[in-house]
């Protein structure tokens, strides 16, 4: 009972509700948005990539850090995927995916090491690596690009194939989400990530392995950005050196909209992923309902701001309720 009640009042549910409303509203105006084979597929497929990034980002944000380099990591790993296929077309797809994910993990590790050991704020470090990693792709790729013809059909097929009406990439995103949610919710290490974000000083005092956990979070985020790179290559079939540019802000925005506190300690990956789906879907819905696509960013901005203002309002309400509860718990035979 309590669980059901909590779930209904949760942030995740609120975001999901908005999402449902957006989809329903758009579908009324334009039935094809949901009720055509393509509409259904794109509804699930288009947000998958950002959702995977948002899951990774949420893991980092929960620890009171942030990873701005995910767009660049995605670009690098997407290009790596294409290059591997171009160089060795017979390579098993699994191997290439593993290589790209591993590459992402290594880039995340670099972020994590600097943040955890040099005690430099993640914002600065990942701003730096945002530049540096993008520079690496640009230097490596030059003006080359990977085209659909460079990659095997079996791989590109993953970008469009559906299983029981659900796109493969959406299944990947859901699996990632499930594993991450499970880890954060039910493992000791996962709970410690929240503790670290909730109060880093207390975490040290408590004796939590703060550095190791932060490292883990960045590696996970990097690896997921790497996976998103693979998904990018499979979905879009073309990879240029600019792949994923500017995605970091969308992802951080999605995480915030999904109810992950930017200063750590609270929020879930489910919320982050839902936030990502909402942002992407609104982007897709606007032109359908007749808002010129130029205004999309403004709507996203309003959404992000609304989300954080709402969070604050709710938090204040909760704090006041708790304060009142304290008064009730300590009824006082009023001062004589």
């Amino acid at each position, binding site marked *: 009972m309590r669980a059901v009640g909590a779930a209904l009042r949760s942030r995740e549910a609120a975001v999901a509700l908005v999402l449902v409303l957006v989809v329903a509203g758009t579908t009324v105006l334009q039935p094809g948005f949901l009720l055509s084979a393509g509409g259904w597929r794109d509804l699930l497929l288009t947000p998958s990539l950002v959702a995977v990034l948002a899951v990774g980002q949420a893991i980092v944000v929960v620890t009171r850090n942030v990873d701005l380099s995910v767009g660049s990591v995605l670009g690098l790993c997407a290009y790596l995927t294409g290059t591997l296929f171009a160089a060795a077309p017979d390579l098993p797809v699994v191997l290439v995916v593993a290589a790209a994910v591993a590459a992402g993990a290594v880039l995340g590790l670099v972020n994590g090491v600097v943040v955890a050991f040099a005690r430099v704020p993640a914002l600065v470090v990942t701003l730096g690596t945002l530049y540096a990693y993008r520079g690496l792709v640009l230097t490596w790729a030059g003006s080359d690009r990977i085209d659909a013809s460079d990659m095997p059909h079996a791989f590109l097929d993953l970008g469009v194939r559906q299983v029981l009406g659900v796109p493969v990439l959406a299944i990947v995103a859901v699996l990632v989400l499930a594993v991450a949610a499970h880890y954060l919710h039910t493992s*000791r290490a996962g709970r*410690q990530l929240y503790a670290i974000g909730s*109060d880093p000083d207390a975490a040290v005092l408590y*004796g939590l392995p703060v550095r190791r956990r932060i490292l883990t979070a960045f590696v996970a985020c990097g690896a997921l950005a790497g996976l998103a790179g693979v998904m990018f290559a499979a979905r879009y079939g073309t990879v240029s050196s600019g792949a994923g540019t500017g995605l970091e802000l969308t992802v951080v925005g999605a995480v915030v909209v999904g109810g992950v506190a930017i200063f750590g*300690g609270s929020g879930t990956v489910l919320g982050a992923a839902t936030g990502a789906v909402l942002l992407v879907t609104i982007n897709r819905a606007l032109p359908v309902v007749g808002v010129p696509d130029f205004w999309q960013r403004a709507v996203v901005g309003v959404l992000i701001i609304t989300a954080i203002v709402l969070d604050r309002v709710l938090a204040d309400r909760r704090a006041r309720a*708790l304060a009142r509860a304290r008064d009730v718990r300590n009824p006082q035979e009023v001062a004589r």
Partner: protein
Amino acid sequence: MTTRSTMSTPVLRLEGVRKAFGPVVALRSGTIVVEPGSIHALVGENGAGKSTLVKVVAGVHRRDGGTFELGGVPADFRTTAEAKAAGVAVIYQEPTLFGDLPVMENLFLGSEPLDRLRRIDRRAMRAHAHELFGRLGVDIDPDRPAAGLSIADQQLVEIAKAISLDAGLLIMDEPTAALSGVEVERLFAVARGLRDEGRGVVFISHRFDEVFGLCDTITVMRDGAHVSTDPVAATSVDEVVTRMVGREVTDLFPKVPSTPGDVVLEVRGLERAGTFHGVSFDVRAGEIVGLAGLVGAGRSEIARAVFGVDRYDAGTVRVLGRPLRPGDPAAAVDAGMALVPEDRRLQGLVPQSTVAQNMTAVVRRRISRLGLLSTARENARAAEWTGRLEVRTAALDMLAATMSGGNQQKVVLAKWLATGPRLLIVDEPTRGIDVATKAEVHRLLSGLAAEGLAVLMISSELPEVLGMADRVLVVREGRITAELDRADATPERVMRAATVGAAS
């Protein structure tokens, strides 16, 4: 049955342990030997180095020198995790709860019960939590977030957390400061249980009734060094106090009598949900009003609300008859109010600014010329006050962080006195200050009052309140429960008003 020899191996042995923070030597020569099956009191004035000693044992700080053995084995912890693994459980003076996590996760973080699939077993965790709280006789919902717990409940969760570790050595740094009588009794029962199981317990408290009622050995510290260790039975409160202070207590409070003048501060019906209720009082010119109560009673909250750093839900504050805009410290300053806050490092000073910048922080605009503020002008103004209050620092452009606590407190006082206030609120003005400086501060306050300043003094040290105040207000759980004149203010009366059911 364990053999005689292992029985006599001390659980904890510290000898001549030293710890300095930059120029501040917090612990000069910390020494304590805790036998198994005993409850060992550690007493000393504020700033004597008790918490620092605890933190060395807990692995928070690494000692600069001295011997540290645990169960007869040399120890040198780099992290609290190592100390925990070695069987040291600590309740820190400041609660260290993770506000975003539920209470039960706070209790078991890192050692949560797991199910067969190595997932956290929340059901088992909840049951354990209930069981622990049952032992302590408290009723806290294990599923609620730790944020928003009252200070007392936070302390109880800390206690439950430490007990759950099942450690060979339990250190409690002022665990009772915020607890009610019943809760204190329960805690003591638990502590005695642990002692009877043969574990070592270290108990830090400023309340001598507790120390003498619970402990079997007592170690006194002063100025970061060991003074004495005696069986409780072989000593007395007076003796301990004399050792703590290092001289006769009475000359600490050079109270100058003065006649109260007009009402300077008038507080009526101040109210803030969950914090304080119906607070009304006056402070007159030339008068020192003491605000007494247990830690967490809400005295600082009241002071902060009056000064405007916090908001309040209802009530009025008047200074010299004029209503004060709520929530606006700048207005309070303009009205002639000054607040020396309780936390020097966080509230009183900007440790990373220079001494001169700190001393002129509130009068910056006043000492600017044509809107411009030069370092030379700041230094001139600061030099004047370092002279008056005899502040000791290497140079005016040293960072405030490098000064000793007493001198930092003088800087805070100077920064406010420089504004020429009509009302001075001092919150724990002598916390963590050595005895000599303490007397200086008292003399200063007393002199200022004699010159007609209205002073509201919050202090958790009963002797200080009783020694300095013309009138004492006692606060309990956010309400003023007693108002006592200097003549009527006895320790018993104040304590009775401050605690519920503690004194029968």
